[in-house]
């Protein structure tokens, strides 16, 4: 058994919280986490300690749904107030505030070279920003504002490819669009309608959507995560589900499912060793899948519904954040 494997997954530390954590960014080469919270704030803490002191960076005024690091000093946060806020984490000061979207910001992504920031929101627009200056570079429009049954749609997820040239965005009804970052052209689109349940008979409402996205290392495939079809949309009572596409051919290559719940985040190992899906229902779930063999490596539990995850540099440790808890887990033997 290799020194590091998902099969070794074990808990290192759980840190209990009163709030719900929606997003996490990790300071390189450390256990320091920046988290976005339901208490409307951005917090910084050391997950290497059992009861770490908590440093509040500032109050966002609404749920903070995404935090990302630009370099080691700048944090960008996005929230349900539609704003993006750049913070100097060392000085604890606001660098700038941008009214980025007219509705809830759902997720942020930073390009691998750290120069660009993408934001998606329920105004159904993806905007690309200069990650350093906050200047808006362009906006990407293509997701429908309304669902087929005339309710407002939502734009949940965005991710850059490893080379930073492509960006994927995913919405409530299961549509994923691949964009050319350089000029904003739409390069392709795939649909994962299984991830969206519209119940027009029993409950006349919907649940689901594309919550997690990840490109494979060479950028030719896109993994799309969420929850499969649900019989009872009152809760997340469908199978957690990931579908992998060759996006250029709009061809689904394979899919895998797990325990009841929704996949909120996907991480594709940079050396293609695994694809990690993480999320939850009443409890947390984690799945590691071998994309080359198209076989499961490990499926397990995390002690809370997980909304986001960060890995360390060599992908041997994960930091999961979610419902009233932070969970640190190790993949090393």
């Amino acid at each position, binding site marked *: 058994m290799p020194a590091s494997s998902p099969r070794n997954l074990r808990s290192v530390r759980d840190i209990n919280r*009163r*709030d*719900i954590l929606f997003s996490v960014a990790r300071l390189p080469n450390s256990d320091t986490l920046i988290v976005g919270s*339901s*208490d*409307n704030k951005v917090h910084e803490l050391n997950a290497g300690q059992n009861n770490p002191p908590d440093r509040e960076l500032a109050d966002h005024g*609404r*749920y903070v749904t995404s935090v990302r690091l630009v370099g080691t000093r700048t944090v960008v946060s996005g929230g*349900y107030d539609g704003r993006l806020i750049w913070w100097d984490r060392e000085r604890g000061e606001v660098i700038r505030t941008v009214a980025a979207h007219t509705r*809830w910001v759902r997720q942020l992504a930073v390009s691998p070279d750290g120069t660009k920031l993408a934001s998606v929101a*329920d105004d159904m627009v993806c905007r690309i920003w200069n990650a350093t200056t906050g200047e808006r570079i362009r906006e990407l429009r293509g997701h429908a504002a309304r669902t087929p*049954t*005339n*309710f*407002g749609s*939502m734009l949940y997820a965005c991710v850059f490819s490893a080379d930073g040239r492509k960006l994927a965005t995913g919405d409530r009804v299961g549509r994923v669009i691949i964009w050319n970052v350089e000029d904003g052209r739409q390069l392709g689109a795939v649909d994962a309608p299984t991830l969206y349940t519209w119940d027009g*008979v*029993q*409950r*006349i*409402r*919907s*649940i689901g959507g594309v919550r997690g996205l990840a490109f494979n290392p060479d950028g030719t495939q896109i993994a799309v995560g969420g929850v499969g079809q649900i019989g009872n949309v*009152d*809760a*997340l*009572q469908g199978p957690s589900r990931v579908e992998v596409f060759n996006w250029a051919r709009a061809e689904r290559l394979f899919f895998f499912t797990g325990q009841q719940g929704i996949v909120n985040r996907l991480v594709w190992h940079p050396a293609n060793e695994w694809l990690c899906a993480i999320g*939850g*229902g*009443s*409890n947390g779930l984690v799945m590691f899948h071998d994309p080359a063999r198209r076989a499961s490596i490990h499926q397990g539990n995390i002690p*809370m*519904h997980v909304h986001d995850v960060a890995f360390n540099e060599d992908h041997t440790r994960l930091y999961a954040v*979610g*419902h*009233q808890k932070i969970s640190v887990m190790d993949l090393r033997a």
Partner: protein
Amino acid sequence: MRKRFCGSGEHVISRRGFLGTMAAGGVAACADMTAIQALAAPEISAELRRNQKRCILLWLAGGASQLETWDPKPGAVTGGPFQAIQTSVPGIHISELMPRMARRLKDTAIIRSLNTRNADHNSAAEMMMRGRPREAGLNYPDLGAVLSRELGQESSPVPDYVAFYFATEGRNMAPSNPGFLGARHGAMDLYTSMIPENIRRNGISEQDHIERADLRGTLSRGFERGRSSLTIDSHSHAYSRVRGLMSSEALFDIGREPQRIRDMYGPTLFGQQTLAARRLVEAGVPFVRVGRAWWDSHGHNFETHQEMVPELDQVMCTLLDDLEQRGLLESTLVITLAEFGRTPNINSQLGRDHFASAWSCSLSGCGIRGGSVYGRSDATGQRVADGEINAARLFATIYRALGINHRKNYHVGARPIPLTDPGTEPIREVLA
């Protein structure tokens, strides 16, 4: 012959107004003139339209969240992600998901202090449809049946109680129920079609219907001879109205509405059914229930409400505007109500669960002091902090708003059954 009207002062006033208008119009009339005949005279029609009380219940089945509608708690740990917005009434805030209602709160009273102590779908729905918990040995009628009895017009050509409920979930939790009032006050239940299937003529001629009615009458008279039963009486009454109801088909057809009006209500099923409800009350139907299911958001509560509350906001606001423009809002009570609300605590699926300890409803229009709030929940919404009310007080308030004496009794055999339990008082603060 069973007495049709309850004898309350409200009906006397209504008839007095009706007769007064008849006299003013110089029209020879008699007191038992049917509504359909009276509607032929424009000036009488207008008076009738003003005086006849009606009610539309927007039934938010499954339990809408008070925190995402009428009682937001922004900033509280239980508050969720939505903000509160200022309404047109200084000092009153509602969820940001309801911007249209925020602008037109002038006709609406919000009640934020329901403590109904029952968080089970079935029995809570039954209670909130009847204003009282189930009682062994007593089949109490629901609100629609009571209002059919109290507000319905003898020989009305339109149904007295129509209920839309297309979703299958929850349909059996709060079925329409005339109870001891009998089938005459039962609902015309619409589960699958906007236009009642059983009043479509489907190629049967008018002459066929006359002959069928004659045959039924002949058979019934034979059966009834020597028998006396409230049940037989009630069923006979219901059958006798069928031919009148057959002419109601057009009332259900929202395709007859201008596109502009249809657009205002929106394209959703709930919008279409609420538009049909407006058409029905305009034609004299005293009670229409529009069931909007299913709000039971144990998972992803906020996205569920993000989807459903804007629809409620649009439909409810449009309905109130539409009724007002037609001169009907003063005589039509619009209620939003569910079987319960939702927990302030947010569960691990970002959901809210069943909660009956401190939740909200709204009353708009007829008999209501608009722009008011009654009751208060505590800072986190866990308990009623002020003005706690139960289902009986809410129903007493509804009855009073509609001009019905909430202290009156029905009789089941020799047993008097009060509309609301003795000592129950309406919430006078929300009554006009």
